[in-house]
């Protein structure tokens, strides 16, 4: 627990977290005001529910990026700065050490998303839709799932791969995860080798947009697809196995 708390404090101290959160808040404030309009398929998005869904996607994308930025350096930095030796001499196992560092990554990412969610809550209040606020808590919990997937994947991969490779895989995960539905349809339009490649990418990387969509559904009051949520949890479980399987040679 001490390892996690220390790691967590350091994550929160990082400047990039604040910068990204500030940028996201500005984007949300712009979209949520009359200062900017957005359009989908050539039609302006109007009405609270439509706009809320768009903002929810923005929150999710920002959260996923944050999760990657925060999680990527954690474990490699621990080893590079030889902090790991202080842990080994206390007889703490690699699994426990990596698990606590990963937990710190996930919690710090979740904190950032919570801040973004507060902006969403503020938007709801200003739009006279405070009635949606109670449902934002379960919505936030579901959103955590997608963020946790990214953070966990990055953390696990950073145990055994160099940072640039982890960053690349993480970026593909986010792009494929956010554009899952779109890419799924696109693969069937283009077909051929590219279609097959996209099919495999979609098979490997989880449907992050599907998960955030369920969170938005919970808040707005639309039906929730339990299958998507269970698949998300299963994905978390499968990636978590990496914490048991992957070891650093140094130890």
């Amino acid at each position, binding site marked *: 627990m001490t390892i996690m708390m220390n790691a967590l404090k350091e994550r929160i101290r990082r400047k990039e977290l604040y910068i990204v959160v500030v940028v996201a808040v500005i984007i949300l404030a712009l979209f949520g005001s009359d200062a900017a309009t957005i359009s989908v398929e050539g039609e302006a998005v109007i009405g609270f529910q439509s706009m809320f869904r768009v903002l929810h996607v923005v929150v999710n994308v920002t959260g996923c990026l944050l999760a990657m930025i925060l999680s990527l350096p954690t474990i490699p930095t621990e080893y590079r700065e030889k902090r790991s030796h202080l842990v080994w001499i206390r007889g703490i196992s690699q699994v426990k050490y990596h698990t606590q560092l990963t937990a710190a990554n996930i919690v710090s990412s979740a904190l950032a998303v919570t801040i973004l969610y507060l902006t969403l809550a503020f938007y709801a209040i200003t739009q006279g839709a405070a009635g949606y606020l109670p449902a934002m808590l379960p919505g936030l919990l579901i959103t955590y799932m997608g963020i946790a997937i990214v953070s966990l994947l990055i953390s696990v991969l950073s145990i055994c791969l160099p940072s640039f490779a982890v960053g690349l895989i993480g970026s593909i995960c986010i792009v494929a995860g956010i554009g899952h*539905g*779109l890419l799924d*349809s696109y693969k*069937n339009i283009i077909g051929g080798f590219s*279609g097959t490649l996209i099919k495999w990418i979609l098979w490997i990387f989880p449907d992050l947009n599907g998960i955030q969509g369920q969170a938005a559904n919970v808040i707005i009051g639309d039906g929730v697809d339990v299958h998507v949520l*269970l*698949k998300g*949890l*299963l994905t978390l479980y499968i990636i978590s196995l990496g914490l048991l399987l992957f070891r650093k040679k140094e130890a």
Partner: protein
Amino acid sequence: MKIYRILYGALGAALLAGAFFTGDYGLSDENIKIYEDALALQEQVDELGFEQFNLNEYKVRFYDGNVDYVVKGNDVNKEEAVFTTFVGTTYKIDGEYQVILPTVENFAEMYKLLGTAGSLAEGEVNFTEDEYGSAEHIAALWHEAAHAYQMTYYQDEILSLIEGKVSVENIEDVIVSAVDSNEDVVKLYQKQMGILNKAYITTDLSEKKAYIESYLEMETERRELLDEEACAVEDYYEAAEGTARYIESHVYRFQEGQEAFEREYTNETEYQKGSGKYYSMGMLKCCLLDELNPGWKDNYDFSVTLTELLEAL
């Protein structure tokens, strides 16, 4: 420690089971209903007059993005996809022509992605995303089944319209290069579209015939501007796709009524590049032939062009 491992393993097993049992597998009920509803229209399609045209003769493959669900009668079998892309077509598989369509869910997804039905609907389906549903999918299914029928019974006849006359593999290229790029041809065609629409709309028989005569005169004039290859491709598209669109549109009418039929199918006034325009013109000619020569489909084998049938009135 052992108990934690057991609990961890049990959690994984529970999640796996949960994800598995909550998933949707197989062909959705909506697609099965679409197939059954399409079959139920057989008697009404019989009245259109195409001999031996039975939907239940052809297997229908619904492509769900991963595999084909092959439906015939009450049987639904999962098979490897023939095309790993969204297409609406008929294709010879194991010696028989089968209908291939995306599932209705995937079709709707494609609309969302492209704003139209994209390459699948190259002139075939003219609905917007909001309009597309079961009735439209049933109509599309019959459209492709019409091609399966043409290729099963009249392949030689229908291909005789272009065989030996067309030198390129993709016949649509002929339309793009010889028809769409010729301004005079396009202008005349646009006029012809308007005239044929008027012929369809008017209820005065002599007026109808006069419009058709005017159309045919312009057709002769327009064809003089085209080479033999382009004329052959036009004839082929009208015979193959025009009749298929005719069947599709009437299947739509059986389901949605005359008003919806006229709104969606007989208001085509914009010139479409590529082959799409021949779907509409061919269909309109079939409708006019119905009015002026109801027996035109008796022994019709697709070797005679629709324009020739109009000329014979």
